[in-house]
C-alpha cells in the first residue's frame, strides 16, 4: 500500500515539475505562431525526459549514488568540471527565468511591477529550503502544481480539432518561416529536457532512500509522471493555437499568455493561470537551486541533504542560499523575463550532450548496476537522445540568430 502511495506522489511530483515558465512560454509561442504543428516536439521532448529520468533514478536506487556523485567518481575531477560548469551556468539562467515567472504572476494579480517581486520571492523560497525538509519541498510544490490541470480543462473547452491534433503528434515540416519553426522546436526541447530535472530526480531518489525495491516505482513515476506532464504541456500549446493563432496574436510579453485561459474559462481562467504560473515557477525555482547545490556538494564530497539542519551541511546550505538570492537580481533590475526565458531554453538544449553522453557510459556499467544495466532497447533510445543532443548543440546558435524573434 505504501508503495502505491509513493508511486502516486511520484507521479504528482512529475506533473508539478513539468509545466513551468519554460514550457508555458515556449508552448504559448509555438501554438500562437504554428498552431498545433509543434506538438510532436513536445512528444519527443517528454519521451526523452521520461527515459533520462528513469535511468538516473535507476542509477541512484541500485548504486546508492546519484548521477552527480558518479560524474565525479567515474569520470574524474577534470571531466566533472565540464558538466559542472555547463549545468551551473545554464540552470542559473533558467532559475532566473523562473523567478521572473513568479514575479510576473504576482504582477498580474496585484498590478505591482514584476521587478518588486523578485527579491521577496527569493527570500520566501530560501526560507522554505532552510526550514523545510525534502518531503515538504517535493510534495508541497507538486500538490499545489496540480492547478496546472486547468490548462487541460481550458484546452478541452476550446474544442480542439482532434484529427488535426492527432496528426500534429507526428513530425512535420513547416509551411512558412522555417528558421522560426526550428528555433521554437529547439526551445521547446530545451524546456522539456532540462538537465536539472534528471539531476534533481537522481538526488531525490537518494533523499527518499530508494533501493533496488523501488525500481518499479521509479519506472512508473518517470513514465506516467511525464506522460501527464507532457499532456499538460500539449494542452498549453493547444490553448495558444486556438486562442492566439486565429487572431494573429504573437506572444511578445508574458502578460498576453493569461488570455489563453481567460478566454475558455472566464474569470476563473485568469485566476487559474496566475496560480499555475506562480506555483509551477516557484516549485521549479526551489528544484533548480537544489539541483545545482546537489551537483556541487555531491561532486566535491560535501555533506548534503534537505533533511539535515543547515548547520550539519553548511556548504550545501550556503550554496543554495547564495544561488537563490543571486538569481533574483537580474529580474529585480528589470531584465525582460520572456527574453531571458527564450535564451535559457536554447542554452539548455545546447548543453545536453555533457550530461546525456556520460549517462550512456554509466548505464552500461555492470559494477554499478549489476543485472540492472541497460538492455539494447534502452541503449538504442539513449543513443538516439545523445544524437539529438548533439544536433541541438550544433543548431542552437545559428537558430538563435536566424529565428530568435
Amino acid at each position, binding site marked *: 500500500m505504501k508503495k502505491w502511495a509513493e508511486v502516486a506522489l511520484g507521479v504528482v511530483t512529475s506533473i508539478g515539475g513539468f509545466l513551468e515558465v519554460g514550457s508555458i512560454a515556449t508552448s504559448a509561442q509555438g501554438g500562437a505562431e504554428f498552431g498545433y504543428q509543434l506538438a510532436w516536439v513536445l512528444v519527443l521532448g517528454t519521451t526523452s525526459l521520461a527515459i533520462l529520468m528513469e535511468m538516473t533514478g535507476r542509477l541512484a536506487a541500485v548504486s546508492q549514488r546519484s548521477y552527480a556523485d558518479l560524474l*565525479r567518481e567515474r569520470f574524474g575531477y577534470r571531466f566533472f568540471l565540464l558538466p559542472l560548469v555547463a549545468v551551473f551556468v545554464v540552470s542559473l539562467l533558467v532559475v532566473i527565468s523562473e523567478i521572473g515567472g513568479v514575479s510576473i504572476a504576482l504582477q498580474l494579480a496585484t498590478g505591482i511591477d514584476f521587478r518588486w517581486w523578485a527579491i521577496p520571492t527569493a527570500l520566501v523560497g530560501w526560507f522554505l529550503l532552510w526550514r523545510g525538509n525534502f518531503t515538504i519541498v517535493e510534495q508541497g510544490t507538486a500538490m499545489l502544481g496540480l492547478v496546472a490541470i486547468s490548462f487541460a480543462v481550458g484546452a478541452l473547452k476550446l474544442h480542439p480539432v482532434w484529427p488535426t491534433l492527432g496528426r500534429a503528434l507526428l513530425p512535420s515540416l513547416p509551411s512558412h518561416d522555417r528558421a522560426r519553426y526550428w528555433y521554437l522546436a529547439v526551445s521547446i526541447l530545451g524546456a522539456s529536457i532540462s538537465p536539472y530535472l534528471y539531476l534533481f530526480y537522481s538526488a531525490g531518489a537518494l533523499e527518499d532512500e530508494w533501493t533496488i525495491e523501488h525500481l518499479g516505482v521509479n519506472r512508473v513515476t518517470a513514465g506516467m509522471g511525464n506522460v501527464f506532464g507532457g499532456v499538460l504541456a500539449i494542452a498549453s500549446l493547444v490553448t495558444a493555437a486556438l486562442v492566439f493563432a486565429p487572431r494573429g496574436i504573437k506572444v511578445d510579453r508574458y502578460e498576453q499568455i493569461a488570455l489563453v485561459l481567460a478566454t475558455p474559462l472566464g474569470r476563473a481562467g485568469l485566476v487559474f493561470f496566475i496560480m499555475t504560473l506562480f506555483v509551477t515557477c516557484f516549485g521549479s525555482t526551489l528544484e533548480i537551486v537544489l539541483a545545482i547545490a546537489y551537483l556541487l556538494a555531491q561532486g566535491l564530497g560535501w555533506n548534503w541533504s534537505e533533511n539535515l*539542519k543547515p548547520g550539519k551541511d*553548511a556548504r550545501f546550505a*550556503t550554496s543554495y542560499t547564495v544561488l537563490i538570492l543571486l538569481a533574483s537580481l537580474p529580474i529585480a533590475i528589470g531584465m525582460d523575463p520572456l527574453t531571458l526565458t527564450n535564451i535559457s531554453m536554447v542554452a539548455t538544449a545546447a548543453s545536453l550532450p555533457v550530461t546525456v553522453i556520460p549517462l550512456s557510459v554509466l548505464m552500461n556499467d555492470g559494477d554499478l548496476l549489476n543485472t540492472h544495466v541497460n538492455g539494447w532497447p534502452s541503449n538504442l533510445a539513449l543513443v538516439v537522445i545523445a544524437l539529438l543532443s548533439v544536433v541541438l548543440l550544433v543548431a542552437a546558435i545559428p537558430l538563435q540568430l536566424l529565428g530568435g524573434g
Partner: protein
Amino acid sequence: MGAVHLSHDVIDSQLVDRHQEKIGRIDELLLELEEGKPPRVATIVIGGVARARRVGRWMLACHRAVHALLGHREEYESRIPFEAVRRIADTIELDVEGDTLPSMRLDRWLATHIVCRIPGGSGERK
C-alpha cells in the same frame, strides 16, 4: 578480497569519517618514495589545491590568486595517512575526526559564523 584499483575505486571516491559523516572526496593520493624501499601509497589529500593541480597549472595559479585575495596564508588541505583507511567500498571509511580536518575549515566557518546565527540553522535533522 580482489584487487582494488586505485583509479577506479579510490581516487575521487567519497570519504566518510568515523561517524559516517561525509568529509570530502579523495582529491589526490601521494606515493612515498624511500631509498631501498618499494613505493607505497602513503597519503590521502583532500583540498582545493590538489584539485586545481589536477586540472592544470593555470587553474592552480587562479586558485592561489583567489586565496591570496582572501588573505589566506596556509593551504586548507587535509593530508591523511593511508593507514587511516578502515574500509573500501562504495565509500571509503577513514578513522579520523572530520571536524578537525583542515579541509573542513570552510564548512566549520560557515556553520559557526553564518548558518547557526540564522534561526533554524542548528540542530540535527529537520
